[in-house]
């Protein structure tokens, strides 16, 4: 596999994580119940919608709505 592809992927992931951290409404996140709060933090770090939704005990669509409330963008 060419190194350039690896580098670009790593760069995109870094950018995505930074954008999620920067846009997130941390005040909103801190006021959530522990399960939801941790799922949102997991999403900010990993960007994995399905696993984060499972952690939160929500459907994917419910969790996506929660991301909007927390101002956390999907970056893909």
């Amino acid at each position, binding site marked *: *596999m060419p190194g350039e*592809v*690896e580098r*670009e*992927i790593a*760069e*995109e*992931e870094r*950018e*995505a994580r930074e*954008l999620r951290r920067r846009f997130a409404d941390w005040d909103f996140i801190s006021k959530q119940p522990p399960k939801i709060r941790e799922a949102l933090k997991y999403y900010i770090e*990993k*960007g*994995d*919608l*399905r*696993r984060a939704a499972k952690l939160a005990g929500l*459907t*994917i*669509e*419910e969790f*996506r*709505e929660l*991301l*909007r409330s927390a*101002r956390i*963008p*999907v*970056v*893909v």
Partner: protein
Amino acid sequence: MSRRVFAIADTCFLIDWARFRRKDMLFKLFKAVFVPEDVLNEVRSEETIAWISSALSRDYLALYTPSRDEVNEARQLIEESRLKPHIPSVDLPEAICLVAGRRRGYVVLTENRGALLIPKFMSRYSGVVVWRSLEVILNAILEGVVEIDCSKPGELFSEYSRDTLHIFPTKALNRAVEEVKRKCLGK
């Protein structure tokens, strides 16, 4: 069956796309977009269900029931992808879309990074065409199914971002906007 006639969409794609004011442009790009039954089970909001049911009734969307063999291949794909450190996790709904992409030539519509990267890292799936909303919008512009203002080549991508709170990676967005500019210049 030639490419670009059919697509198959996963949940992550559909739930964001359903919020886009120009969502029906999708049906000008493809004769039908298949939705795996598992994906349909994951959709809950009134807005998304209303759009999906309307599109199903107009035959723009169609249900996709994977065969046992396809599900087995999808499970194998998930296992193999776990051995590749660069690929984020892929679950069964996305894997089924990729298997349909490989076997039937459907364009896979997804916002799952794992699904996006699999054709780059797994040779068996290297021929699968995977599009995010970014590529759907870009191809809609390039194929002329949507009109744009050439003085604002990035406007449609911004519109999508505003409607959905979805941000495109800078490099990928810049490349897409450059392609739009080239089309506007007639190159």
